[in-house]
Every structure is written in C-alpha cells, then in structure tokens.
C-alpha cells in the first residue's frame, strides 16, 4: 500500500463492509481496505499517492457504534468494525456535496478539455443532480497562464490535489492555497519560473481547472487513443500514455493515481522521425557499412532489444561495441558487485521514499533524474527525512528538502566516498581487510583535500543516530570518474554492511539496459557505424543521418529502469522506414519483429524469458505496479580488495559541469517543441568575476574535442566557480558524454 501508510503494525484485523467480512492488516484506512476488495467509495479529493487530503468529504461512511459519518480516507479501520459505504443517508449527503461543488461551476462542458474524463461531470451524473438549489454571488476570476499549464479558477473545485502533488511529490512547492471561503483559489508562488513539473499537478486535477497550455482546446478526451508506454528520456522509465489522434501525439498522460511523470516525459513527446520511407539505396549502404565496421557506437536512446541485436551482430561480425556512458556505468556496477556479490544495486525508489535519511552523492539529482528526486522529496515530506546533498555545486531547486549540503572539491569524489564510508561504518562490524583499509585512511589529509570538514561528517553521523532506514543515491559524476571503481566499492560497503538502500542512478536513456545486455568495449577504432551516434555511417532517429531509424515513440521494445524493472514501450506513431532489425536480418539474423528479442534477453543478467506481448502493463486497484518484470539479482564473484586512495587531482580556476536543464536529457527532448529551454552556459556572479565574463557574453571553448559556442548568463541563485554547461542541443554526441562531468574551462571570446 502507499508508502506513507506503511507504518502499520501488521496485526491482522477483520472488518465488515456492507455485510461482507474482510481480512486486512491494522494501519490501513477504511478506504484503502474497501479499494483492496473492489468496493466502490466515491471520492473527489482522494489521491492514492499523497497523504489523505480530506477536503471533499465524499468518502463518508457509517460505522456501527459511531455517531455521525466518518471520513473513510483518514480513519484507520479497527478490528471488528462494521462499516456501511452505501445508504440513503450517505447518498443524500454526497448529493448535497455535489450540489455545492456545482454552485456557479461554468456550464462550459462543451468546450472544456476535461469533458469526458471529468470527475465532477461523472459524479454529477452519478448522484443524479437535475437541478441546482444553491447559489452564490459569482466573482471575476480570470484565467492565468503559468507557462506549461494554465489555471482557470472558475472551474477549480479546491480539492487541493495539485497543491499536494506540487509539495509532496514533485517538490517544486510552487502551488499554494489562498484561503478565502468561496473566494479561495490556487496560487502559483513561483510564476517567474516555468516549472514543467506542474504538468503533474495538472494531471491530477479532477476538473478542467489546470490544463496543459499547449493542449488546451485542441482535442477532446474521447477522441484520443491511449497508447501505454514508458518514458525513454531519463533512466526512470516512468509509466505514460501517448494520447494519439490521426497519427499525431496530442499529449502525454499517466496513471497519476499511483505514479508520477516529470516535465520531460509529459511535454517532450514530439521527437518522432516523421515522413520516412524505405530508402533501398541507403539500406544497402547500411548493410555494407555494418559488414565493414570495426566499431559500432550506440547511444543511450536504444531499447534492450536493439542493444541485444547489436550484441548478437557483434558476436557474428566481430566489431567493437562502444557506448561510453553505459560502459562507464557497467564498469562501476562490476566493481560494485565485487563487494555486494550481486550484479545489481539493492535499492529501490520506493524504499527511498520510505527512508528516514537520504544521502545524495555525485549527482545533480533534480536535473539528472527527476523520478529519483521526487522519491527523495517524498521521504522528506512524509518522514521528515534528513537529506544530505553532497556535491560541488549547491542546487537551489532542492534547497527546500536538503537538510545538510556538503560541498566537496571537484575531482575529490574518491576521497569523499572514503570519508563517507569511514564515517558511516564506524560502529559496524566489517571484514578485516575492509576495516583495516578504513582504519588506514588519512582522514586529515582527505578532509583537507576534499574540503569536507570532519565536523560536517560528524554532524551527518549524529543526525543518523537512533534512526533506521537510510538511502544512498549515487549518480553519474562518479561513473566516468578516473577512480570510479574504487568509489563504487566504497559505496557498495554501505549497502553491504550498513544496510543502506543504495540506488546507483543510471545515466539518461537506457544506459542500464545497454550495460546489462551488451558486452561493451572501451575505445572506438577504425571504420565506425553509429546507432544514434555520429560516425562514419550514422543510423539516426533524429533524421539527417545516412539511414533513418524510428524514434523511441515509433517502436516497440523494452527499457530497463532505475527501479531495476524491464518495462514495455509501444509504438505511438507509424514509421515507414527500415529498422535495425531489418539490417540485422540481412546480416544473418532471423527475427520478423524486433520484439522477438524480448524473450531472449540474457537471463544471466537478470532478464526473464517472457514474450513482449505477455508483459503486463498496469497498476492494480491498490496501486501495486505490474509493469513488465523486476530484474533478478544474480550472484557475482566477490573480491574485497581496495587500492590506496590516490593523490587527488585538484581543479583550480573556472570549471564547467556538464548538466542539462531539468526537463532536457538528449537531442530528443531538445527536438520537442513544448520544451523550450535555451542552451546557455549558466554561472554565478562569482564565476563571472573569476573569468571576467559578463552576462550575455558569447564564448567558444572545446571539451573532449567538441566545440561549443555558448552564450554566458549569470544565474544569481548560483554560487561558486562552477558553471553549468548543457549538451542537449549538441545533437547526437558520443564524445560529449564519455568523460568526467567536470572540466576546466579554457575559452575564447567570440565576436559579439
């Protein structure tokens, strides 16, 4: 059941609902038990994934021996309770509530976007409201445009779902209630910033008050076909529906009752490779290129099946398979497994949201993996979790949930990991080799080099005393670090010996799936073929390559998510060209469709032999996720030897950090017309002073052989001498993501 109610004692109770006896566990609310057994209790404001709101009073039930009606969403069921969910009195009560909801509600269902899937409309019909007896003086309430979403206060029924989602789930905390009786409204307190995460607030709106601005009035709910899929942008693989009419995606929705979708998933959907036909000439050249290739490069925007096709081709043709980010992650996880003895990390997102303390290390989590950030936010809001954010750059966006920001020097991640392990494993029993390694650490030296004060670590340790249920989130700063393997082992110690719920957030895209399916090589050489990567011969889903490929929303396949789940994606749009499977078939493979590879994904990596069409994709009535299957952790050999902590490399002067804005992950999100982020170098005033740059200067610089031409802008909320350098606008790029995310900046001014 939902995370926030998991503190039940587990005692078995039996309750009688409408004359039927049910067994359940103590701690669940009456509504939860009713839903568990498919008993219908009408609600207007109840949202399973947040704490009960209790503003609508529709869920009232009668309990024998209790006077009056009680709210089933808030009241926990007690043993032997006799509950009635439906009686004449309850019907009348609910009918009156609906009448009040309908006071002055504009009669514009004809044009309202919500019409057809509107809770208010449905319940008005359900409770048979034929006439309105109540009235109130109406007031002028103009429509507000907040960017990605628009708010119409006249339609708002003040259920508070959006406010709760914005606070408890997405954590942008933009929405607040302005109280004032009949004049109450929802206000956006952060209008100056266009939060794409408010798309989730719009999704939970039971009426048409909050809607996507670009979708508004373009289609009716009943005209759109829902195509279930998974979001391919970050590694989250969140559940989503493409809503399609006449071969066009109009919007993206989700099972908002139980799962959450970030702004990139919700608004970044129009990146399909359209108007492609079968180009026989290019196809023949592609086959030839594969035959001649010494190396095949693949990007993270590759499904498990396509990765497997390339792996099989590698075995057949003997080329090298290169995917830098996935390779770094693969090596990191191999080293991680050396400590834990399993090939996957043990953590899950759900356990993050149930944690009492979360440490985030080596990831600008809000930008890197919104889905993970949401779960950290849930822990913070539901369990007042301590959140320690360890990173060289402070992040204003998560300041509201971070209780301790620990800043460390760029490049010193290994030292930080060692200090962290040492601090958190002080009183833990460890194997001798590990204990002696930790005891031999020169804490003073590490502390000086990393710039992490011992008192900061001590404060962290103390804050965790007398608590249980900790999570560690590590991210992609660490994977491409020169000392990644050592860092992986140190992080693994926390899972293995301190019981931490560790989540190694995979880089954006399906990097985790690729790292599990493919046998990757380090360096590219010779003639190259690129699958969504620039190469001598490029197969591209963005268009403009040597042979067109379908984008992620035009093909079937599976993704591997941060939750270690293999989830199905379905094709939302038609595609007329060749796919990778066609190339593979000419090269000697034999499969009619790409999804025939789903059942032969490597079982030794935790995949299961299940046909694509047999993969489930739904949430049940209590919100349990039945999407695809969970990867099984396989045993790997253990070796607990540590290297000495190396002399730390210092990064002086101006440094840039490869980091895309929150709703951007790749060239595919960049292509999406609803996400209009500017690719600028974003730095603090301090950075500007250090580099003698002014707001609006244009500079050129090169990183890993890629030339950038960037506008520099000052972000007054930032601090320090590290600037954020986005790469989402740089097209399909391999070199960009191949190395450590921090880089020294040597720039030249471009002519202004």
């Amino acid at each position: 059941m939902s995370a926030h109610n998991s503190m039940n004692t587990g005692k078995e109770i039996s309750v009688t609902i409408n004359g039927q006896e049910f067994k359940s566990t103590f701690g669940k609310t009456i509504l939860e038990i009713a839903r568990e057994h498919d008993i219908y209790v009408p609600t207007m404001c109840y949202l399973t994934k947040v704490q009960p709101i209790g503003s609508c009073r529709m869920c009232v039930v009668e309990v024998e021996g209790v006077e009056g009606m009680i709210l089933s969403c808030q009241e926990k069921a007690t043993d032997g309770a006799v509950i009635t969910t439906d009686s004449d009195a309850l019907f009348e009560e609910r009918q009156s509530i609906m009448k009040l909801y309908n006071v002055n509600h504009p009669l514009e269902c004809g044009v309202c976007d919500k019409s057809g899937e509107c809770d208010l409309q449905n319940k008005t019909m359900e409770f048979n409201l034929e006439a309105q007896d109540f009235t109130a003086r109406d007031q002028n309430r103009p429509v507000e445009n907040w960017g990605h979403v628009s708010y119409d206060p006249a339609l708002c029924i003040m259920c508070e779902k959006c406010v709760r989602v914005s606070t408890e789930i997405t954590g942008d905390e933009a929405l607040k209630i302005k109280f004032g009786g009949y004049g109450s409204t929802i206000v956006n307190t952060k209008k100056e910033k266009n939060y794409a995460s408010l798309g989730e607030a719009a999704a939970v709106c039971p009426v048409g008050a909050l809607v996507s601005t670009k979708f508004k009035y373009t289609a009716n709910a009943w005209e759109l076909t829902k195509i279930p899929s998974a979001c391919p942008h970050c590694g989250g693989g969140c559940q989503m529906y493409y809503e399609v009419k006449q071969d066009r995606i109009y919007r993206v929705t989700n099972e908002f009752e139980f799962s959450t979708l970030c702004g990139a998933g919700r608004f970044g959907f129009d990146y399909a490779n359209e108007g492609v036909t079968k180009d026989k000439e290019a196809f023949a050249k592609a086959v030839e290129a594969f035959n001649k290739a010494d190396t095949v490069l693949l990007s993270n925007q590759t499904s498990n099946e396509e990765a497997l096709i390339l792996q099989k081709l590698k075995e057949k043709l003997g080329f090298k398979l290169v995917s830098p980010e996935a390779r770094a992650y693969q090596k990191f996880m191999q080293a991680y497994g050396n400590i834990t003895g399993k090939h996957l990390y043990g953590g899950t997102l759900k356990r993050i949201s149930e944690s009492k303390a979360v440490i985030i290390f080596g990831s600008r989590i809000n930008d890197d993996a919104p889905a993970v950030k949401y779960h950290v936010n849930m822990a913070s809001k539901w369990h007042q979790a301590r959140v320690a954010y360890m990173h060289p750059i402070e992040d204003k966006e998560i300041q509201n949930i971070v209780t301790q920001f620990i800043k460390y020097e760029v490049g010193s991640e290994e030292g930080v990991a060692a200090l962290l392990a040492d601090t958190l494993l002080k009183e833990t029993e460890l194997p001798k080799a590990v204990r002696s390694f930790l005891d031999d650490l020169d804490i003073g030296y590490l502390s000086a080099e990393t710039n992490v004060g011992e008192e900061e670590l001590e404060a962290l340790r103390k804050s965790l005393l007398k608590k249980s249920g900790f999570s560690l989130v590590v991210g992609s700063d660490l994977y491409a670090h020169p000392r990644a393997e050592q860092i992986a082992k140190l992080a693994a110690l926390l899972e293995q010996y301190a019981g931490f719920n560790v989540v190694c957030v995979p880089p954006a895209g399906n990097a985790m799936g690729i790292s599990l399916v493919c046998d990757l090589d380090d360096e590219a050489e010779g003639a190259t073929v690129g699958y969504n990567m620039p190469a001598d011969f490029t197969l591209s889903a963005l268009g403009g390559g040597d042979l067109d490929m379908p984008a992620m929303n035009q093909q079937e396949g599976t993704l591997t998510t941060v939750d270690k789940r293999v989830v199905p994606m379905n094709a939302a749009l038609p595609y007329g060209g060749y796919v990778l499977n066609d190339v593979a078939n000419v090269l000697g493979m034999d499969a009619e469709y790409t999804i025939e590879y789903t059942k032969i994904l490597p079982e030794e990596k935790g995949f299961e032999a299940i046909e694509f069409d047999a993969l489930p994709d739904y949430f049940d009535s209590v919100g349990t996720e039945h999407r695809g299957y969970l990867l099984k952790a396989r045993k790997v050999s253990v070796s607990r030897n540590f290297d000495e902590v190396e002399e730390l490399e210092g990064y002086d002067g101006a440094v840039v950090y490869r980091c895309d804005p929150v709703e951007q992950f790749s060239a595919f999100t960049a292509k999406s017309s609803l996400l209009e982020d500017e690719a600028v170098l974003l730095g603090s005033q301090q950075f500007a002073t250090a580099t003698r740059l002014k707001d609006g200067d244009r500079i050129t610089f090169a990183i890993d052989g890629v030339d950038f031409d960037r506008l520099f802008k000052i972000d007054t909320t930032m601090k320090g001498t590290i600037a954020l350098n986005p790469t989402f606008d740089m097209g399909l790029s391999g070199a960009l993501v191949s190395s450590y995310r921090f880089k020294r900046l040597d720039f030249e001014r471009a002519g202004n």
Partner: protein
Amino acid sequence: MGLEQFKNRNVGTQNYKMLDLGQSPETGMGKFKQVLDRTFKGELLVGLWVTMREMINALFKGQMHTVKYPFEKLPISPRYRAIHDMLRLLESGHYRCIGCGLCEKICISNCITMDTRYDENQRKEVSEYTINFGRCIFCGYCAEVCPELAIVHGPRYETASEQRASFSLFEDMLTPIDKLNLQQEYDGFGAVSPNADENIKKTPLAY
C-alpha cells in the same frame, strides 16, 4: 381458378364510358370532307384563345403555376435532411459552433472531422471542419446532438456537383454574413421543443 377469372381477379366494379368516336371515313371523298369540316370549324381559334388567356393570367395577373427550377425552388419541410448548414448567432454574427466535438463523435458514418484550437480571445475556435459527403448518410444525428443548434440540416437537397468537396467546408456551409438576416431558425430534428421554456427549472440567483 379459370383463366378468365384469373385475369379479372382484381378488377372491381368499373363504370367505363364508351366514347362515341364515330366512324372513320373510308372513302377518299369522305376523308376530304372531314378535312374541310375540321379546318373551317374554328376549333383552332378556341385553342389559341385558351393559350392566350392563360398566358395573360400568368404574365400580368400573377397566376403562374410553374416553378422556374433551378431559379426557383419549392419550400421544403423543416424535417427534410439535406446538405448541412452552419448557423450564426443572430446578435453577434459569430458562428454558433463551440467546437465541442459531439457531432464528430456521434456521426455513425465517421464523415465529420474537426480540429480546434485555443484562440486569442481564450475561446475554443474551430480551425478545421469538414464533412465528407461521400460518406454522409444524412441521418441527422449531428443536428440532433448539437447543443447550440449550430449544425443543422438545410434545404439544399441538390447533392450533385462537380466535386463533393464543394459542399463540405465549414465556410461553404456557414450562413454568409451578409445574409444573416435571412437565416431561418431550424425547426427540424433536434430543435428546441415549443414548450421548452415551461420545462426549464431555473437556477436561483444570488442577486
């Protein structure tokens, strides 16, 4: 049944009158006499007079009985379901259609297609509206379901044209703005019942 009975099985009691056609002359002289009789009897003038009288009545006394189709058309029943009309609001001249999409949804031959958008005045604007008259079966559901009486069946029953497309665009069906004063309220399928006012229960007003 005998053959005779069978042939007369549905013949009722008839009162046939036999016309006295006389005898046709058989001799050459007889035929010549008949020609002379007919020529000088003056029947021609009677015929010419009748024609002249009717012509004068029609042209000068307003008693024309023919309809100059296709320039003139007879009025047709409001319940007749011909090519659709899109009506305008009489007060503002704005088209009535609110873009709710119900006609598109209810259409059983899937011939209505529409696209809408959010316009500058925060209204839902119909940006594209077509009816495929190759598919339309003139069932009248669209007019019945329309909450605004915006789409109705008009009197244009001539469904022949060089192209079917020339009927089907929104603008072609819409009442021309200069003929707004000639727009007829629709009484056919789906129109408001004559006693609608009596059936409405009014919402109380706070002021």
